């Protein structure tokens, strides 16, 4: 039996533009990973985010998509950065 967890998702740049929001909450099952978050985001965003590349950060640190998420985590979708 799996309990629901909630994570905060933050979107930047092109993804924020495509999602129409900079932040939202996502409900997942307790055994979820960052890959599951990404999949949910792509489902929510639909065609607008289909072509958009992004990396994932968990609690402000880059993390691989196999990393598990926990209740209360902050997940960020990081499009290719453009500083400098």
């Amino acid at each position, binding site marked *: 039996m799996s309990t629901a967890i909630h994570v905060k998702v933050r979107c930047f740049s092109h993804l924020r533009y495509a999602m129409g929001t900079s932040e939202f909450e996502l409900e997942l099952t307790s055994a979820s990973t960052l890959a599951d978050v990404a999949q949910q985001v792509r489902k929510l965003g639909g065609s607008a985010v289909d072509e958009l590349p992004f990396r994932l950060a968990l609690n402000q640190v*880059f993390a691989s998509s196999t990393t598990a998420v926990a209740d209360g985590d902050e997940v960020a979708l990081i499009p*290719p950065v453009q500083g*400098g």
Partner: protein
Amino acid sequence: MVHTKLSDQPLPALMEAAANGDWGSEIIFHGRVRGAEKDEEIVALFYEHYEGMAQSELAALAQETAERFDIPSLSCLHRIGEVPVGESSVRVVMRSPHRAEGLEALAWFIRQLKQRVPIWKWGVRANGERFPSPHCEGCDRHEHDLG
């Protein structure tokens, strides 16, 4: 000695380094805002950032660069928010015994900054409208993780 900072203010005047008989090389890089973004004329760039992670990634990168290239003094200031055309959006100051390691470290630092510090730019048109910059510098060179 590593110092990094994000700021929404114009860069402060360059300070003359204190005399130091160990550091034979000082290299300063200013990245300035150009008048066109992907062939479209602009009046400014707007720098969006991920509050918290932008600062921590920049600080970690500076520390990593200093260790990797044995750089005794590295400072990086990066502006966020709107930066008018012609002004500097970033300043890097690299002080080291010799110029060879300084030049190498500078090139590496900026390349890394443009790949991992979560800052993004938007073009700002004369009417104030912002448009996202369509490509990142690294797009041609490396695959992006599609999540």
